[in-house]
């Protein structure tokens, strides 16, 4: 039975060529696959040519063959369907299963049968998008700034009180240790230590609770205001109604003398100072822009920037003038189809973040995320998906490749559901220049070794990961993407001039290849690719890369459309 299900359509066609008399001139008999016949007329022409058949037969042969092919095809499909139906007749329990599958399919593909989707989640984004492209934009940004200050104040208060407590603890402890054997027994000391730890924990938790409460309240208030303000504006001909109740409410909030506690009452200039210690060190140290054309006949123009900067420079939010303009831009394009993203190299451990991820978390938490879930909640979801993925991988590998896979498992530690080359994506609305962050999993330490020059090739998992990142970027309207050119966020002693050049060349070449591939997917859309080199790279190396880039991307005449704007290293 299964055999006949696989009917491949092969048949034998027979035809007798006759003239008026009864005696046949020729008997035709040839194999034919009814599922693959492209054009009956052409087939007939071929047969007639091959067998030297007189032309008056053509019409008859055409009709005969056409009917034959049509009938056989129909029968074939009918038979296959009959077999399937027979299966159901033989085993009526299948009905449930089939019904499930069909119902599911309809649910997932037909608007009419899909479960009703509440418009609620779309309400806030739509209102926000509307406001940010309207005169209300200013107000929105001011409001965000206010909220930002409040969070900043909370964080600095937290820092202070934790430091104070820490100092007090240290004092207590040192006193206790000095007096061990007199007033205090060792047991007392350990009790004290436990108490102190508990105190610190409590204090931590207290501030974390405060932080969560504040941000949640801010978010709720903000979302609510945005939706209502948008409604108010729509009602008054898309103009800002200065006397509208919602507008007044917002104004009251902005007026910090009478503002509620959700909004900081401090002078904003103070906040800048408290934060400047973090931001001041890294801006763009050196940069160069290129315009390239890719494509054989139809060329698509792309911008490529070579930048020496700290990766998180593109994330940090501050009140600096130029930054604010960037922030506007980012806010306005949040719900557009021109998104910005960066790629961060991250390690396999999702639970405890270290290095750049830790810094990144600090940046994210320095203001409230109004549009998406918090970074923590997003990573929690990622964890679930990663687990699901590794389970699926487990299942599919159960038969073959088991050995190889087992080795992989051994390499993984307890939390390691992530593999090199995997990546997760987090969404953000409170960063200065990016909406999306690709966290590309890699062993950054190994990527920095001398040996990595030979081991990291175009087939390396991290490079494959980059390919998928560009693919997601192309299918999800990401127009600006920032990539660590050396696949590393910092320079170590092992990294030499030669190393930089070779690694950069590899990454550029691969990215170029992926960009060409992307063109077949999205029909050639202009993009900006930003290659970032960690600060501390020598000017000599940067110069060399400036010359390597146009060679790799084969730009000739159109180089440097934007005037070269170079800042010399400040250190």
């Amino acid at each position: 039975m299964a055999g006949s299900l696989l009917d491949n359509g092969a048949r034998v066609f027979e035809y007798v060529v006759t003239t008026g008399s009864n005696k046949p001139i020729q008997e035709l008999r040839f194999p034919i696959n009814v599922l693959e016949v492209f054009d009956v007329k052409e087939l007939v022409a071929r047969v007639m040519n091959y067998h030297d058949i007189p032309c008056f037969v053509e019409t008859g042969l055409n009709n005969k063959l056409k009917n034959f092919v049509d009938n056989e095809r129909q029968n074939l499909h009918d038979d296959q369907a009959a077999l399937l139906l027979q299966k159901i007749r033989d085993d009526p329990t299948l009905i449930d299963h089939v019904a499930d599958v069909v119902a599911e399919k309809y649910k997932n593909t037909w608007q009419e049968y899909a479960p009703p989707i509440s418009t609620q989640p779309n309400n806030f984004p739509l209102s926000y998008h509307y406001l940010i492209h309207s005169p209300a934009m200013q107000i929105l940004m001011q409001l965000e700034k206010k909220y930002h200050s409040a969070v900043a104040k909370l964080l600095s208060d937290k820092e202070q009180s934790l430091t104070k407590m820490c100092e007090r603890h240290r004092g207590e402890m040192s006193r206790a240790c000095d007096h061990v054997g007199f007033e205090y027994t060792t047991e007392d000391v350990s009790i004290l230590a436990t108490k102190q730890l508990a105190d610190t924990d409590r204090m931590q938790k207290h501030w974390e609770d405060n932080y969560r409460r504040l941000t949640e309240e801010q978010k709720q208030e903000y979302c609510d205001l945005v939706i209502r303000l948008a409604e108010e504006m729509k009602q008054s001909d898309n103009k800002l109604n200065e006397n509208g109740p919602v507008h007044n409410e917002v104004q009251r909030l902005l007026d910090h003398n009478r503002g509620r506690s959700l909004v900081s009452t401090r002078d904003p200039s103070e906040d800048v100072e408290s934060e400047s210690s973090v931001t001041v060190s890294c801006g763009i140290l050196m940069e160069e822009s290129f315009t390239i054309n890719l494509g054989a006949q139809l060329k698509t123009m792309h911008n490529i920037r070579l930048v020496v900067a700290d990766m998180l420079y593109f994330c940090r939010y501050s009140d600096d003038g130029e930054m604010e303009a960037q922030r506007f831009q980012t806010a306005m394009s949040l719900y557009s189809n021109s998104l910005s993203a960066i790629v961060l190299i991250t390690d396999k451990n999702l639970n405890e973040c270290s290095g750049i991820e830790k810094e990144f978390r600090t940046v994210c938490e320095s203001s409230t995320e109004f549009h998406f879930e918090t970074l923590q909640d997003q990573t929690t979801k990622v964890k679930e998906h990663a687990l699901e993925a590794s389970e699926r991988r487990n299942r599919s590998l159960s038969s073959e490749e088991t050995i190889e896979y087992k080795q992989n498992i051994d390499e993984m530690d307890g939390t390691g559901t992530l593999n090199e080359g995997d990546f997760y994506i987090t969404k953000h609305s409170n960063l200065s220049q990016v909406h999306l962050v690709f966290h590309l999993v890699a062993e950054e330490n190994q990527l920095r070794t001398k040996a990595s020059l030979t081991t990291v090739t175009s087939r390396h998992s991290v490079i494959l990961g980059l390919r998928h990142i560009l693919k997601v970027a192309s299918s999800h309207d990401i127009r600006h993407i920032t990539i660590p050119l050396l696949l590393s966020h910092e320079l170590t002693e092992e990294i030499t001039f030669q190393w930089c050049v070779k690694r950069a060349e590899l990454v550029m070449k691969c990215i170029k290849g992926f960009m060409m591939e992307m063109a077949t997917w999205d029909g050639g859309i202009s993009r900006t690719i930003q290659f970032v080199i960690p600060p501390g790279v020598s000017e000599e190396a940067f110069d060399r890369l400036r010359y390597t880039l146009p060679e790799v991307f084969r730009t000739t005449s159109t180089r440097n459309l934007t005037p070269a704007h170079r800042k010399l290293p400040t250190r």
Partner: protein
Amino acid sequence: AMPALLGCMSFVTAALPHNQCGSNGLPLTPNSIKVLGLAQKLKTLKHENLCSYVDFKCGRHERIFAVSELYVDNVLDRIMAPSSLTQKEWNEFSVPKLSGYGLHHMTDGGTLLNGPLADVWALCIVLMELLHKEVLWPDVENKSLVKRVLCLCANKSAQKNIEVLCQDFKEKNLLYETDQAIQSIKTILENGLCVNLSKRAMPYQILKQLDKDKSSVPNPTTNGYKIEYNGNTNPLLEMDSDEVWYLWNLAGGDMIAEVLRSVTTTPSVRTMPSFVTLHGDLYGLEPSPENLFNPGFQLLSLDTVESRLEVNSENISLIYPLLELDTSEEVSHESAKLPLLIRENDFDYQVHRIALYKRLLLGYPYLREKLWKESRIDIPPFCRGKVWSGLLDVQGDIEDQYVHIDKDTPIITDRQIAVDVPRCHQYDSMLSSPIAHGKLKRVLKAWLISHPQLTYWQGLDSLCAVFVHLNFNDEPRAWASLSQFIDKYLHKFFLKDNSAIIQEYLLVFSHLLSFHDPMLYCHMTEIGFIPDLYAIPWFLTMFAHVFPLHKIVHLWDTLLLGNSSFPLCIGVAILQQLRGQLLESDFNECILLFSDLPEIDIDGVVKKSIQVFCQSPKSSTFRVHARTEEKSKREPTSYYTEDYNTLPKTELSETAIPLSELKQEVCCRISADDLIQLGELQGANNSKTPAKLTKSSKPRIFVIDIRSSDEFVRGSIPGSYNFPYITDKPIAQLIQTVLKQKPKVVVVVGNKGSREDREFCLELLKAGLIGVCVLHGGIDILKPIGVLTVPSQ
């Protein structure tokens, strides 16, 4: 008849796995592109009971837009639902029109779209529902609905199914009434509700059955759709819906925006997956409701088009041009002088051009002369495929010829074709579809089989792509046009051994460059950047490998009007556009520059190439390997359109010289007959030759006779200047004398045997003198015919 409206159905094709690539190592073709290719064929379906498809577009995020006619009053939806039948008001004049029928074909039987498909069974159910005026199993959720249907499997006969189903209607015995209409419905049901597919009738079988008792079915009138006639002429009535659609776009319609406006889209940032594995599996994708299938149509109103087409006394001659009425004043449009790109987007202008060309094409070949004449102004993109085949003199029963070419049997070239086709003009979404790949392969093979003496050279695919793209639904025409095109412009280029042909072509090209731009020629020769290094793909593909399709069509619009030497002029024009960069570049930079040609302004190239063409003496591009006979015996329309290579030869004509000798030449040769004509040595002629500004003015030609003064005195060309040349003789003085005359053509005349003219010409070129050429055969060739005179002292 005009459709009341145009409508657009849009849907998002099924997503492809991120982690796979094709067997040839190239990325997988997105499903939307596959659909786009498959859908094209639907445009060719025309039937009075069908809403024709007019266009398909592929938008962002794998969304397909299918535009078709839409008749508001009497449309039937292929996606069966009772509402698609009941809401309409039927009367005896209405012609039922089926819409949405292409979904099955364009999605490859539903594999490219997770969507619905309707069949005879569905039709029967709808009929039952209509008959009972009641929905079968209302409020039953999908799962139980499927179960109930599957339970019917147990029933062997349609009769039994009908009985079971009827039990669920309020009125159970309706089907047993003897009313004729009900009886014919019953026939349909009995044929269509069989579980067993081999017994279930196909639609045509049901129709056949019903035909027997025709009386029961109201006979639809043939001409159903009536537009209200208010006394005015309505040009829309005479247009095919694809023309209406074309004009709709020109009138400022933006279909994609209009459709998307009604679709609430989830912003991209929210559709992002949250986790992606190394293998490209996506996790955490949120469903976007707009990606679900919705069978509705977005109506596209024709009001703007209709109002802009309103006929009045001013535009009537433009919309209804009269070709045979010989009015001395040519009816032309005011936009005719605007740049081509503006003209192509000008609604009124295109209405006029299309109307004109439609008539010209109907009158072809009788109106061929006129077609040529109009083509010199421009060719409307809407008719380009047909116009080109007209200009290329495609004739005969090409469909029959094409069918009889065996394109199936494997040949050696198949492998190369299979490699090249998926890399050919793939930025074009239509050409990157599997259907297009198939068409390209077939047309290529057909050409190879029909030209057994020729062979496949890489680049033929690019040539072919242009014609396939233009004649997507007409392979025979693509094949025939390609054949004619190659025969005219690429004669012998596709021989197995084509080196002599290409060598000659490139030499002639290089000489033509020296004629028009001696400075550039000298620079490029000096650094060794010879045409062999860059121009072979230009000419072998007639620039089809170099430019994107939208530029090629404009280039070829003009190319097709020129003779077989015109491509050489295009080559010169391209070099001249890059002149500044080339003059500054050394060999390596030139190689880099040409390995990936920078953006070229094609309009500029077209204009420049016409100029180059007009200023070159026609014998200067003489080639031994050019086609020597013209198939059609058409009178050339002017001095320029005639092909020197096909003209009858006399003793004064240019003759072949060995390739080795041609290589030593530095500039082009002019034939004696050309010289006589240019210099009006045998009396004035009225044609506008390169050396003349207007028809009546005197030709600007300067003849330098480099023979010794003794020889010169004995007999020379009237008006020639004697400059007995010996090596290293300074020529600065001479250049001054020549420049004073501002000649268009400078002819160097020497003796046939001794060739000091080459050295002399090189000197002239180095001095930057434009328009230098040598008299082919020297002075001796003119001796027998008596044009030489003794110069008066």
